[in-house]
C-alpha cells in the first residue's frame, strides 16, 4: 500500500511537471496559432462601380490590416441585380470565405436565399438591415429621409420635387424614400416618385425633369447621387439637387453649389465596423456594442467646417 501511494504521488508529480512544460510551449502549438489565422472576408456591393464605396473600402482595408483579414471586393456586373448577387454570395461561401459583408440589393430575398441554401456564414450588411439577427452598419434610414425632406423644405421656393426610386428592393433606400415622402406629404408639398436606373440617369434626367416639371430632385443612394453630381453641370435650369454620400465628387458639387445639400456620414467608420464585426463573428467572439452611426446634412457653406472636413476627406493626404 505504501508503494501504491508512492506511485500515485509520483504520477501526479510527473503530470504537473508535464503541464509546466506544456504551458511554456503553448504559443507554438498549432491550436493557438489558428486563432490568429487570416480571415477571408468577401465584400459584395450592389452596384458595378466600386468607386461609390471607396470611403467604406478604405475603412474596411484599415480594419483588415488591424484585425488580420483579407478582403475581396466584388462589384456586380449590373446595378441591383439581386439574382447574381445571391449567386455570387453562394460562390463566395463555397469558395471558403469566412464572412461576407454585403450591401444587399434585395435584403428580404437574400435572407430567404441564405435560409434556403442553409448558408451558415456570418453575414454583415451595410445600408439595409437584413432579417435574421445580422448586424447592419448604417445611419438611421428613416431619420435620413426626414432630414433630406427637411433640407428641401428649407430651400424650397415653390418647386415640385422629384424623388428618385433607384433601388426599390433595397429596404434601406426604400426606407429613406418613404420617410422623405411621408414628411413631404405632411407638409403638403407636391412631389413625384419616379423609378430610374442610376446608370442611365445621366441621360434620362433632363427628360424626367421636363416630364414632371420638377424643380428639385432628391436621390437616396450613392449611385444616383453620383449621377446627379456628374450631370448637374449641364442642366440648364440648375434644379435643387439633394443626395447622400460623402465622396470627393459630391464635395466638389457641394462647393460649386450644384448640389444643395447632402446627407453625409462616415462610410469609413461603417466599413471599419463591418469588417470588425464580421471578423469577430467568424472567430466566434462576442460582438462589440457599436453605437448607431450618425449622419448630418451638409451644405456648401459648411463643407469646410472641421467636422465636415473630416467626413468628406477621410484620407489625410
Amino acid at each position, binding site marked *: 500500500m505504501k508503494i501504491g501511494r508512492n506511485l500515485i504521488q509520483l504520477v501526479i508529480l510527473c503530470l504537473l511537471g508535464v503541464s509546466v512544460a506544456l504551458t511554456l510551449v503553448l504559443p507554438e*502549438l498549432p491550436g493557438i496559432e489558428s486563432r490568429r489565422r487570416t480571415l477571408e472576408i468577401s465584400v459584395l456591393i450592389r452596384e458595378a462601380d466600386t468607386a461609390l464605396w471607396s470611403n467604406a473600402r478604405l475603412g474596411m482595408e484599415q480594419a483588415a490590416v488591424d484585425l488580420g483579414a483579407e478582403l475581396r471586393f466584388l462589384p456586380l456586373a449590373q446595378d441591383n441585380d439581386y439574382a447574381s448577387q445571391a449567386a455570387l454570395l453562394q460562390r463566395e461561401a463555397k469558395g471558403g470565405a469566412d464572412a461576407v459583408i454585403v450591401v444587399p440589393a434585395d435584403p428580404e430575398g437574400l435572407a430567404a436565399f441564405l435560409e434556403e441554401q442553409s448558408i451558415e456564414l456570418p453575414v454583415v450588411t451595410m445600408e439595409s438591415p437584413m432579417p435574421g439577427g445580422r448586424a447592419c452598419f448604417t445611419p438611421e434610414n428613416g431619420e435620413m429621409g426626414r432630414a433630406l425632406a427637411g433640407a428641401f423644405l428649407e430651400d424650397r421656393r415653390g418647386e415640385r420635387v422629384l424623388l428618385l426610386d433607384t433601388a426599390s428592393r433595397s429596404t434601406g433606400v426604400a426606407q429613406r424614400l418613404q420617410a422623405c415622402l411621408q414628411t413631404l406629404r405632411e407638409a403638403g408639398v407636391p412631389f413625384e416618385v419616379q423609378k430610374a436606373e442610376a446608370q442611365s440617369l445621366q441621360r434620362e434626367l433632363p427628360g424626367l425633369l421636363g416630364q414632371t416639371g420638377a424643380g428639385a430632385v432628391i436621390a437616396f443612394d450613392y449611385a444616383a447621387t453620383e449621377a446627379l453630381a456628374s450631370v448637374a453641370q449641364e442642366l440648364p435650369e440648375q434644379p435643387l439637387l439633394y443626395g447622400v454620400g460623402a465622396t470627393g465628387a459630391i464635395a466638389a458639387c457641394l462647393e460649386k453649389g450644384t448640389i444643395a445639400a447632402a446627407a453625409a456620414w462616415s462610410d469609413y467608420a461603417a466599413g471599419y465596423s463591418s469588417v470588425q464585426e464580421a471578423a469577430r463573428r467568424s472567430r466566434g467572439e462576442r460582438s462589440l456594442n457599436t453605437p448607431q452611426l450618425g449622419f448630418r446634412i451638409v451644405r456648401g457653406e459648411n463643407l469646410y467646417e472641421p467636422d465636415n472636413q473630416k467626413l468628406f476627406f477621410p484620407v489625410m493626404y
Partner: protein
Amino acid sequence: MNRTIKSCFSRLCIKGLAVLLLLAILLGGCTGGSEREESVLRLGIAVYQQEDTFISTVVQHMERLAREEELEKDIKISLTITDGRSNQTVQLEQMDRFLDQGCDVICVNIVDRTAAAVLIDKAEEAAVPLIFFNRQPVEEDMERWEQVYYVGAKAAESGRLQGQIVRDLWQNERGQVDRNGNDVLEYVMLEGEPGHQDTLLRTKYAIDALTSVGIRVRKLASESANWNRAQAAQKMSLWLEEQGGDIEAVFANNDDMALGAIDACLSAGLSAESMPLVVGVDATPPALEAIRAGTLKGTVLNDSEGMAKTMIDLSLALSRGEDPASAAKLEEGHYIWLPYRRIEAKDLSREE
C-alpha cells in the same frame, strides 16, 4: 530512502524526456501548418498614386479581369491594392505588408525609379516574383534577379507617335497650325514629373519626330506640371499671358496636363478653333471626350486594358511555376512591351 529518491528521479527523467520528444515532433510538424491553402492566387498591387487617371483605369481593368478569370478558370484571385501616395517609403512599407501577407506575385508601379533595388532585393529574399509596370526602373536594377519583369510601353514610342500626330497635322493643315506663317512651329511643352522616364523620353522623341523630317521648331517654354491638370492649367495661363497668340502647339506628356492646358485656354476665352494645337498621351476617357469636343487634337493610347491583362496572365503563370514566356512575349527575359496607338478624331468613330 536514497534508493527511493534515485528511482523516483530516474522514472521522472524518462517520462519527462518522452513528453518533450513528443512535443518536439508536434512542433516540427506544425510549422508547416502555418502556410495556407494554395488554390488562391494572391496578388499585391502597389500603385504610385491612385489619383492618376491612367493608373486607376489599369487597376479597374485588373479587377474586372480578375473576376472574369475566376469565373472562367474556377480559381480564386485575391487582389490587394495600395496607394503609395507618391512616397517611396510608404510604398516600401506596403511591399513589406504584401510579403507578410504571403502574396504570390507583387505588381509595383514604382514611385522613385531609382529606388527599385531595395524592392527587388526584398522580393528575391522572399522568392516572390516582381512585376513593375508603367514606371520603368533602371536597367541595371532589372538585371539583379531573373524573376523581375516590366510591363509597359516604350516611352520613346509614345513620344514619337505624339510627334507624328503633330507632324501630320503640320503637313496636312499647315495653315491652321502655323498661325504666324513663319514656317516654324512654336510650341510649349508641359512636362511630367522631373526625372520620370516617360517625361524625358516623350519630351525628346515628340520633338525628334518633327525635327527628323526637317520641320523647324522653336520652344517657347517648357516646364514641369507634374502630370497634374491643375498645375498644367496654371502654367498654361501664365504662358498665355506672356506669349499669348504666339503659341502654336502644346505638347503635353500626358492627357491630364493636356486637359489642363485646354482648361486654361477655355478660361482665357479661346475657343476650340482659336486655341493652339494640343496633344497628349494616355487616351483616358476625359481625353477622348475632349477629342470629340474638338479641343484635344490627338492622343496616344496607352493600352491600359492590355497592360492589365498581361499582368494578370503573367501573374497566373508565375504563381503556377510555369514559364513566363508562355504567358507573354518577353524581351531580354524581363520586358514585356505593349504597343501604343495614336488616337485622333477620326479614330474615335471606330472606338465607339
